[in-house]
C-alpha cells in the first residue's frame, strides 16, 4: 500500500538550533510532494511544495526541502528555528495521474524552547 513515513513524532529544539524533519514515501511513480504546517489552534497551511524542476524547494518562513528521488525522500530543513515555529508538521504526497488526493504522514510535533 502507498504510504508516507515521518521519522520522528516529537522533536524538541532550542531556539537557533537547526531543524531537519525526515519524510519518506513508498510510491514508484511520479509524485507531487508537500509539507503542511499546523500552528496551535490554526488550520493546516501549505509550507512548501515540489512538482518538478529544481529538487531544492524554498518555502515560507525560511523553510526548505530537498527531493531525493533515489531515496524516496523529501526532508524539511530550517537553519535556525524560532519559538514561533512550534507546530505540527505534515509531509504529504499525491500521485501524478492518480487523482489529487493527498496521502499524509503521521505528523511531527515540533516544540521550540525559548
Amino acid at each position: 500500500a502507498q504510504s508516507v513515513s515521518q521519522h520522528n513524532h516529537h522533536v524538541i529544539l532550542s531556539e537557533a538550533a537547526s531543524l531537519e524533519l525526515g519524510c519518506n514515501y513508498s510510491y514508484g511513480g511520479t509524485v507531487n510532494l508537500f509539507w503542511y504546517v499546523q500552528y496551535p489552534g490554526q488550520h493546516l497551511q501549505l509550507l512548501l511544495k515540489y512538482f518538478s524542476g529544481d529538487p531544492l524547494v524554498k518555502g515560507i518562513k525560511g523553510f526548505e526541502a530537498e527531493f531525493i528521488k533515489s531515496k524516496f525522500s523529501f526532508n524539511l530543513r530550517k537553519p535556525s528555528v524560532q519559538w514561533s515555529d512550534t507546530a505540527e508538521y505534515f509531509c504529504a504526497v499525491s500521485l501524478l495521474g492518480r487523482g489529487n488526493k493527498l496521502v499524509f504522514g503521521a505528523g511531527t510535533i515540533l516544540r521550540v524552547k525559548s
Partner: protein
Amino acid sequence: GAGVSQSPRYKVAKRGQDVALRCDPISGHVSLFWYQQALGQGPEFLTYFQNEAQLDKSGLPSDRFFAERPEGSVSTLKIQRTQQEDSAVYLCASSSTSGRETQYFGPGTRLLVL
C-alpha cells in the same frame, strides 16, 4: 471567499445518531476533498469532488458515510448511525482546478461520539 469554512466546528453526538458536516470551499474552486484525522494521526482521504461529480470515494470507511456536492460548491458529509470510532476531526479542502494545485484546508469539524 476568505478561505474554506466548515460548520459546525464541534459536534457531540450520541452513538447511533446521524450527523451532517458542512463545507464551504473557496469561491470558484473546482475541486473539493474530505479527509478524516484521528487523534495523533495525519489526515486520511475520504472522498473527492470535481464540481458536482464525486470522482473518488475510495476512502469512505463504510456505507454509513455519504458525501454530496449537488451544485458544485457547498458540500455535506453525512455520517449515519455514528459509532465511537467515527470520533475524529473531519477536514475539508478545496483547490482551484483539477490539476496540480495546492489544496487549501478548512479549520475542521471535531466530532465526538459518546
